[in-house]
């Protein structure tokens, strides 16, 4: 505070008359400090910090994919931006509200210079947001499960949004000097950009890119080569828009010099350039790459051998092979017969043909002993993959596993869950309706499986027993338990469960 005051004095003192640059800077620093200490801005910053911590500590975020994590930094700064809009507008209108415009009018600094200082005063808040974004992304990148690469152009969107909104507050103060204007604009922006009432919100390309933040968060992360997001052009568009708004505000304040006009023209050109290029849609090369990665992933993938299985993954995901191998090893250790040492192929697949926000399910593979793994990991994805491995070991391939409707389902679910900590909770997680009784759909990386009420009861009884005892019975009767003729009642009998199990009838 004192240091700032000293600094201000030092910078203003040598300012020669007619060269108000130092004075503009000093005023900008003063206004920046006031802006940072305004209650809405402080609230927004506190909320932003809390949001970063809450979001990054979520268990489903333990395995971030960095080309998605960079985009995930963009939503939080919107609130800071709205607070910046209010605060900057408030500061611009202060001299009018307090009726000091007449006093300021006789000073060396013209209104244009003062407007420039107000616009500059948003920069420190944008830098603070940049620090927040950097902290959030670094935190994600240092998580042990992080894979992929982030993009700087996606990361600057948050700070640029804050800058743009703040500068729009300054411009609004010059265009409509009314106290109600900024709150109304905040309501409109909130509705458009946070409430998703923007007419093109949710689209992947085209006019949706005129909004400051285009999140298009899909359920399955894409390899970074398939994203096809014009992030660089969008950053240019945002920067150009912020510059245009600032220069327009300066121009409206009476500083109609040749320099300002030329700069405004340049900024407008940048904005139009960025704005036009970013809306030109997904490039044909990206569409082709998406097609190739979805239909023939083996052309892009790298394979490694771990234990009894080969793992083929997109190059960015190879650090995750260890996690997959751990699941396969645990499931296979419980299996008996030939399945115990069976060579598996774990292939990573992604359905990229329907765009980033498409949530089309992967078709089950018909290749024998091939297991599909998706691009997301952590949370429910782990028990789902475990179920897929168990189902392929028992049924032979994923297509056949999806049609299981007999006693083999008991073996599949027990293999899938018995090695996990708190298997009942995991069972609840993989069932679509989160139930523990009755029939249910069981989620897997490709098509789901089905469990009848009887199978659920038998599996739960088995999970309550010590797993070594059940494992011995499973291994001893492996051939019978995995034969297509085994009914659930027979499987229960073999495994020593005395439960009344009806006939196997799966929901149509």
């Amino acid at each position, binding site marked *: 505070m004192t240091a700032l005051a000293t600094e201000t004095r030092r910078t203003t003192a040598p300012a020669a008359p007619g060269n108000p640059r130092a004075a503009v800077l000093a005023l900008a620093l003063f206004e920046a400090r006031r802006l940072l200490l305004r209650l809405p801005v402080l609230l927004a910053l506190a909320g932003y910090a809390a949001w970063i911590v809450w979001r990054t500590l979520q268990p489903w975020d333990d395995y971030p994919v960095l080309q998605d994590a960079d985009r995930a930094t963009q939503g939080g700064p919107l609130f800071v931006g709205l607070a910046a809009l209010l605060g900057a507008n408030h500061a611009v209108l202060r001299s009018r509200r307090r009726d000091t415009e007449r006093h300021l009018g006789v000073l060396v600094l013209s209104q244009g210079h003062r407007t420039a200082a107000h616009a500059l005063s948003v920069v420190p808040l944008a830098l603070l947001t940049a620090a927040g974004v950097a902290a959030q992304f670094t935190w994600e990148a240092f998580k042990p499960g992080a894979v992929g690469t982030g993009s700087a152009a996606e990361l600057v969107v948050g700070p640029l949004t804050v800058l743009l909104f703040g500068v729009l507050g300054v411009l609004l103060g010059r265009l409509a000097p009314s106290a109600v204007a900024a709150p109304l604009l905040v309501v409109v922006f909130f509705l458009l950009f946070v409430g998703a*009432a923007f*007419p093109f919100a949710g689209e992947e390309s085209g006019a949706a890119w005129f909004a400051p933040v285009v999140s298009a968060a899909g359920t399955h992360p894409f390899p970074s080569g398939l994203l096809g997001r014009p992030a660089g052009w969008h950053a240019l568009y945002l920067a150009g828009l912020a510059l245009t708004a600032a220069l327009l505000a300066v121009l409206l304040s009476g500083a109609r010099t040749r320099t300002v006009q030329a700069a405004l023209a340049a900024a407008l050109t940048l904005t139009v350039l960025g704005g036009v290029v970013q809306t030109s849609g997904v490039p044909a090369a990206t569409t082709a790459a998406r097609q190739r990665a979805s239909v023939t992933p083996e052309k892009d993938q790298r394979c490694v051998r771990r234990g009894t299985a080969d793992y083929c993954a997109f190059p960015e995901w190879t650090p995750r092979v260890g996690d997959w191998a751990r699941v396969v090893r645990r499931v296979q250790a419980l299996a008996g017969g030939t399945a115990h040492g069976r060579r598996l192929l774990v292939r990573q697949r992604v359905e990229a043909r329907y765009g980033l926000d498409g949530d089309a399910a992967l078709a089950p593979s018909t290749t024998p002993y091939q297991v599909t793994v998706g691009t997301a990991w952590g949370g429910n994805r782990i028990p789902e993959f475990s179920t897929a491995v168990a189902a392929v070991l028992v049924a032979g391939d994923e297509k056949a596993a999806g049609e299981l409707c007999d006693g083999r389902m008991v073996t599949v679910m027990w293999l899938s869950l018995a090695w996990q900590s708190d298997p009942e909770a995991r069972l609840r997680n993989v069932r679509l309706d989160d139930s523990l009784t009755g029939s249910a759909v069981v989620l897997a990386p490709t098509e789901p499986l089905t469990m009848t009420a009887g199978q659920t009861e038998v599996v739960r009884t088995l999970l309550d027993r010590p797993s070594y005892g059940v494992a011995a019975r499973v291994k001893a009767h492996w051939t019978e338990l995995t034969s297509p003729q085994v009914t659930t009642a027979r499987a229960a009998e073999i495994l020593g469960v005395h439960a009344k199990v009806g006939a196997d009838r799966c929901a149509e």
Partner: protein
Amino acid sequence: MRGVIPALVVPVWRTLPWRTLGAAGAVGLLAVGLPRLSGAHPDPWTALALLRSAALAFALGLAFLLDDPARHTTTPVPTGRAARTALRVALVAPVAALWWTAVLLLAPGAHRPPTGAVTLEAGATCALALAAATVAVHRTDAPRPGRPAATALLATALLAPLVVSDRWVLFVDPRDPRWATAHEHWAWLLAGAVTVGCLTLGEPLGRFRPTADRPT
């Protein structure tokens, strides 16, 4: 007193912040009207969000209703602030009702949420805005307390959906089974805002001394 009120109607009508209210009302009408004009068919949730935003925009205008540049000179007049504030509210109420009817008619019919319940939400929001303004008048000496009142209302409205706990639901979908419960809460909010507004209607006499610390 009875003869004074009719005499006050015209001057008070003229001092109402019509431009502010007009701007706020126009933003509300545009928020609901533009999607309709563009031929879009917003889903029920978006339609409700649009109506809520329109109500919030108008409430932000209402927060400026008690702005009175001549406050320091009107303090000692015999017709108390309570009567003048009540008159302001009474004058603006029919305009607000007309405006809200227009907004409801503009909202696409197929996806319009239950009218009574949304009107209750809008009424509670406007009452909160007016309560914020009367509290601001009561607690400060400022002749124009509208801006802080509007900022407080705006911050509350934007943060409430994030902060309000799930046990005291407020912002729900019409298809949500808790819709009725949420509207009981809105009714409580309306009642609370009206109570606070009535309690703070009067001039804060005794504490209010705009010239006490100035040398005469």
